[in-house]
């Protein structure tokens, strides 16, 4: 299996704070890869670098062997990368279906005048956007809430709407930033099912997560970051027994 995403010697600092130092790693195509690490380890920074919100100070990021670290954020989704946010980011001024329809933006092309004049091309495309959005809602088993306002649905469903919006753009790589945060056990279980379903479509999933049970259950590979440096990378069972990882999470005394 080849790497769909390659991170080469990437560093990023904010003023004096080194968020990521000389990070090199890869994400295998079709895998579920998890990035873990204590708070401030640089996990979300890495996501922001991949999605183009930040530019690396040095190093490069390659997606399917093409450099993406120089691209503007709004170009990235067109290549097949979608993401969610740690601080849940759904649009409260739209209903569930419309939120997911926004996810189809990179796959549609009606311009300003086509839309304004209500031309046939626009109407057909709009119908297609709507049907596909409904399809992805039912894929995630939340089609019954399609017409609800965002503030009318519980937090867990809002998370799912955000993931549906990402998957609706039919990406090859999907980045999930702490999607389990704030969910209870049954809700987390539903989320795990959803992630498996996404992987079954042949998509690569990269997750940042704090929930260790979830990580150990779903991931094929785990990358451990601490203060912006990679300290371990491997299978879940190897990571569980890795001394450096344990010392980072529990303190040095825990090893003895």
């Amino acid at each position, binding site marked *: 299996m080849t790497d769909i995403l390659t991170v080469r010697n990437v560093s990023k600092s904010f003023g004096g704070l080194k968020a990521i130092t000389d990070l090199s790693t890869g994400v295998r195509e079709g895998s579920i890869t998890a990035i873990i690490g204590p708070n401030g380890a640089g996990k979300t920074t890495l996501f922001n670098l991949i999605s183009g919100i930040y530019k690396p100070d040095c190093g490069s990021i390659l997606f399917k062997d093409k450099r993406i670290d120089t691209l503007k*954020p*709004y*170009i990235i989704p067109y290549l097949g990368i979608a993401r969610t946010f740690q601080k849940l980011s759904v649009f*409260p001024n739209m209903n569930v279906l*419309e939120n997911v329809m926004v996810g*189809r933006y990179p796959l*549609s092309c*009606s311009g*300003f005048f086509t839309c*304004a004049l209500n031309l046939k091309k626009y109407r057909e495309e709009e119908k297609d956007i709507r049907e596909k959005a409904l399809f992805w809602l039912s894929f995630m088993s939340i089609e019954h809430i399609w017409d609800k306002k965002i503030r009318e649905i519980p937090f867990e469903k809002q998370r799912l709407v955000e993931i549906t919006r990402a998957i609706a753009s039919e990406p090859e790589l999907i980045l999930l930033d702490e999607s389990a945060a704030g969910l209870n056990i049954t809700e987390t279980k539903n989320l795990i099912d959803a992630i498996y379903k996404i992987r079954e479509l042949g998509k690569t999933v990269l997750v940042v997560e704090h929930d260790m049970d979830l990580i150990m259950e779903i991931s094929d590979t785990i990358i451990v970051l601490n203060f912006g440096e990679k300290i371990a990378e491997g299978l879940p069972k190897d990571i569980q027994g890795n001394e450096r990882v344990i010392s980072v999470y529990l303190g040095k005394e825990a090893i003895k």
Partner: protein
Amino acid sequence: MKRLFRTSYVKAGLTFIIALILLMVLRNPYYVGILIFLGINIIITIGLSLLMGYAGQISLGQAAFYGIGAYTTGILTTKLHVPIILSFPMSVLLTVFIAFIVGIPTLRLRGHYLAMATLGLGEIVHIVFNELISLTGGPSGFGNIPLIRIFGIELDNDYKYYVFVWAIVALIIFLSLNIINSRIGRALKAIHKEPTTASTLGINTSRVKLYIFTLGAGYAGIAGFLYAHYITFLSPGSFSLGFSVLLVTMVAVGGMENIWGAIIGTTVLTILPEYLRFFHDFDILIYGVILMAIMMLRPEGLYGIKIPLKRIRTND
């Protein structure tokens, strides 16, 4: 049936029919005159509400775009004797072009830089109108702008002009509703709430904002064209900063949630001063109190307000 009423064709058509019914009911030329101005103002505020409510930006230069549209057609038709059929696209295109130039640098920035830039533009345009005396006639303005003639009918009275203006209002409503309901409209709503998220979804935020800003300016240009050929006389006083602020107030009072808010706000603030004339010198005071009361009691605007009739009925 309910679905039919949601389409932009029907909504725009109904607006036009209601306007025609109003014309039949109000045979008073004074009221018809006010409603022509109302239609012209609505054309500007719909554009402004797209910008304010959907893109989250404020323009304080709408009066300038209105003025550019009016002066361009005015100068072209009186000084250069260009036919109206050509002066119309030229005046709208010039407005759009100027908005485009102002919008390119400012809409790349986050925050209210557009408000500042358009404020400056408004002042520049106002100065040009005042000082370019050979073309604009300076502070005293110029007149004798020809009337519009379409399909061989000269729009020489208020009734004909009323129908013409409101047909254009209906067209503007149609275009705007289509944009709002399209992928561009959703992109705008997304930019308004979460610009960073919007960009990670593939939306080129500065470009979409630029489009909607130039569209709003284009609407103002159309309104200016309608104004010039209705009044047939132009002077800089009608295109001051005060009018720009009034337009922003109309949108804010009506509600920025959708274009009907702009229509309501414009209606209230265009008609209200006419009724307040009854109070003579105190009218501006009462006007201010009403505005303050609306903004304090209903900061989200008048649109969607539940008139307490319902409550009274349930209490019975």
